[in-house]
């Protein structure tokens, strides 16, 4: 049993308020979350049911032209120039007038992520902390996703599939840590989809992965998949070879290379595969690999719940495939959130940071706020879990 009420709320209030600042990639998020102080949290294992209220959840995404990714320097500039405006907007929406009196803790993403954007946001967090005299808590980005997913879906102890532009991990909780059961050996699934979107030169708005999903829905030849490498290695996966393979096919398609027998009919030279078919086959192939390792992790830990988090978790086809697998297992349940909480956001950092704060974990010296590009999920001691 854990006591989530170790630190009382500020000024004898009966609730906590946390601000979360997220900026590990191209999304800048500011979120404000409120937890009521409840006696049941004093001796329980209820970190998935805090009664959290999202007072504001504002996000601004750094956008680049079609065919371009986001560079660290320009992404950091975006965060630097928007951070104050977003914090002001979030506070106005949440009705916070005096943060010195009203805010219990400022939570920021300490890693993993891109160094320069992380750095822009932590400077804002440190400044607010000094300005308002409010303590800081550094949050692991992956833990933010997990805790937000648990709070929203009320999944008590799920196997977590964390799929985003920078991460692909299958995670399960054991002995005060979120343990990584399987992960990518090279690039993340979102990175694979984004880079293919760049090859296709499709827009980055609202997100490259979303646009691939929409193209895949329109595939005319769903009954015959284009063969791509299937690279599950034990509990891990590899996706760089799949990307190279599908990239090559797309380039041959654009060049109208009739020698390519996968794309064009050997005898008539007629086109057999469209761009939409490539998007569909890529998705099916990648998602099948994810479903396979997730199912194996569920068997390992004897769980029947799956929680999908991260930006790629919004993909409806992935949710469908995972739901099918869960249905085939006895009483399996799938939990997913919508794009407000799936895609990187500030409230998830506030949620995980507030759990840590309520257990007494705050930054004691600014040297502890140094951000880090490499910060594995299992490095975090989850004091708030039993």
């Amino acid at each position, binding site marked *: 049993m854990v006591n989530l009420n170790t630190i009382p709320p500020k000024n004898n209030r009966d609730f906590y308020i946390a601000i979360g600042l997220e900026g590990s990639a191209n999304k800048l998020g500011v979120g404000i979350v409120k937890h009521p102080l409840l006696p049941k949290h004093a001796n329980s294992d209820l970190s998935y049911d805090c009664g959290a209220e999202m007072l504001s959840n504002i996000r601004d995404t*750094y956008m*680049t*032209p079609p*065919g*371009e990714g986001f*560079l660290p*320097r*320009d992404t950091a*500039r*975006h965060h*630097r*120039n*928007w951070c104050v*405006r977003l914090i002001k907007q979030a506070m106005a929406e949440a009705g916070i007038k005096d943060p010195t009196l009203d805010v219990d803790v400022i939570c920021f993403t300490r890693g993993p992520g891109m160094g320069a954007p992380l750095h822009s946001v932590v400077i804002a967090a440190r400044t607010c902390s000094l300005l308002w005299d409010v303590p800081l808590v550094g949050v692991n980005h992956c833990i933010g996703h997990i805790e937000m997913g648990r709070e929203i879906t009320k999944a008590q102890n799920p196997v977590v599939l964390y799929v985003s532009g920078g991460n692909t991990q299958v995670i399960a909780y054991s002995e005060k840590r979120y343990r990584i059961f399987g992960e990518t050996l090279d690039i993340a699934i979102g990175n694979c989809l984004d880079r293919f979107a760049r090859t296709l030169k499709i827009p980055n708005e609202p997100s490259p992965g979303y646009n691939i999903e929409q193209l895949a829905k329109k595939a005319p030849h769903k009954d015959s998949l284009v063969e791509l490498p299937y690279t599950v290695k034990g509990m891990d996966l590899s996706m760089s070879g799949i990307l190279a393979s599908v990239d090559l096919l797309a380039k041959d398609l654009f060049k109208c290379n009739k020698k390519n027998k996968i794309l064009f009919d050997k005898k008539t030279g007629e086109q057999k595969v469209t761009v939409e078919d490539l998007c569909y086959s890529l998705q099916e192939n990648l998602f099948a690999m994810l479903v396979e390792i997730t199912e194996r992790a569920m068997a390992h830990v004897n769980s029947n719940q799956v929680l999908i988090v991260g930006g790629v978790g919004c993909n409806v086809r992935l949710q469908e495939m995972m739901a099918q697998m869960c249905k085939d297992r006895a009483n399996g349940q799938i939990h997913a959130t919508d794009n407000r909480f799936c895609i990187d956001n500030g409230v998830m950092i506030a949620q995980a940071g507030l759990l840590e704060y309520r257990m007494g974990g705050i930054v004691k010296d600014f040297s502890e706020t140094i951000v880090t590009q490499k910060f594995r999920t299992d490095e975090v001691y989850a004091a708030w879990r039993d």
Partner: protein
Amino acid sequence: MTLPVALYSAPDGVEKNFIPTPDDPRYLTTEGRTTGPSDHVLNAGQIDRDKPSDPKYTADGSQLTYLSQLRTQLTGLQDDINEFLTRRMELAKNKKKAGAEEKRIQEEINQLLDGGDGEEDAD
């Protein structure tokens, strides 16, 4: 107001103080010369919607607000630091290049003096 200052020191003994000159136009803007979008994204057709907000003036319009003064002076200071560090990096790069060239010539001379005819790898 007190001016913001920056102090640079390096293990090779180089030290430099950066102090803004409040009336110089480079310390009166929030758009720095070195803090804009990179050339790469501009060439790719990026429209810059991430500019910093303009500095604000006091109600009577006579001068910049305290925070805006700080922002503009820091923008100029950041430019000074970036330009100084870029120069330092270029110097270091040129030194390294010159060193590599010197090493290559020396190796060639040594080889000739040793009677090498450049065919030792032929087998």
